[in-house]
């Protein structure tokens, strides 16, 4: 369910935070969907369980996830499928910024970058 890279400089709890937020925002994780237990994730990915608990606790505090006694955590119900467009745009903001910086370093024009994005978009649709 998650793509986690322990060797990355981005702490694992952040990787989980970002991925859950994105999946909930896009509706890929609908309200009521269950999340893997901390232990399962820790053993499956061979990563420390505390960093996973930390992510789950933060997502719970944000109201994105709900903790259920003796049961797996679920996506909170008040999250109506898709969150607002500005919020979703805000989430992809840092990735867009990185791409634009890289494009400028490569001295690509705006049109060339947009073209490359469109090509990638269409390939991804197939």
């Amino acid at each position: 369910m998650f793509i986690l890279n322990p060797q990355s400089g981005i702490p694992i709890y952040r990787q989980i935070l970002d991925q859950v937020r994105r999946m909930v925002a896009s509706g890929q994780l609908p309200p009521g969907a269950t999340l893997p237990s901390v232990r399962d994730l820790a053993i499956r990915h061979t990563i420390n369980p505390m960093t996973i608990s930390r992510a789950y606790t933060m997502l719970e505090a944000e109201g994105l996830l709900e903790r259920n006694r003796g049961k797996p955590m679920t996506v909170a119900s008040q999250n109506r499928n898709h969150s607002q467009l500005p919020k979703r745009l805000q989430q992809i903001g840092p990735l867009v910024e990185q791409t634009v910086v890289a494009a400028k370093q490569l001295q690509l024009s705006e049109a060339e970058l947009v073209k490359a994005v469109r090509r990638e978009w269409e390939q991804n649709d197939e």
Partner: protein
Amino acid sequence: MNSATVAASNLSKSFGAKQVLHDMTFGISPGDVVGVLGKNGAGKTTLLELILGFTAPTSGAISVFGHDSHTLPGSIKARVGFVPQQDELLDQLSVADQLRVIASFYPGWDSELIARLCGEWGVNLLARIKSMSVGERQKLSILLAFGHKPDLLILDEPVASLDPIARRQFLEQLLAISSDAQRAIVFSSHIVSDIERLANRIWILKDGRLDWQGDLDSLKESIVRLHIRGGGSELPALIVPGVLTMRREGAFATAVVRDWTQESHEALENQASVQIDVEPLGLEEIFLELHR
């Protein structure tokens, strides 16, 4: 009494005139997995031996489960497991006999767990220890430290001779131990990627001092590489807080800093109207940067 597994304050250790550890203060709580990193000779083994009570500190205090570590009663020692760098196996025994000898010391020995792990790890019970490879001996030493289900498990470079598959099996077992029953693990290794998976807390030892201690997550957020770009052809003079290394090239500079925060980001950008990209660093990079 506190509930800390280990508590140490102002710990120092000298051998003769040579001071090996300087003024270390730290704690270990139940459920912690502490990864200990340091160059050869940084003091890792001495530190682990102080926790185990094999040697007394020259000054300062250290307690394990609330007892002075150098005079631990047997009942507390039975809650500690240790995998030494150099194994202490009895060459003339078979694996099964060696397991039996150690098991006889501990009333709570979990022979079911050990039998299962012997199967999973491919440890042959009938093998003579003297004919075993270094890797096989290491697996057996680890099993001997697991069997009594210690509340504090200390491992001094336990995986140096294990192949990647055996290492992964070993990590999975340690994670199962730490997530099932709030036990504490202290683990020194030069294999940084293993520590990066296993540990929630990191100690970086440098010249006998704890150069950094804290959560692995915080470490990765605190030590980062900055890519700084100025507007003109020459980067203005900058005071970069917490800088470890810095290289300037015309309008650009890269700097590795510690104690980085969002506030320091904004302060630096405002200082000389430069643009900053933050590159997060993996643990190995961080370790290397702290030793430049």
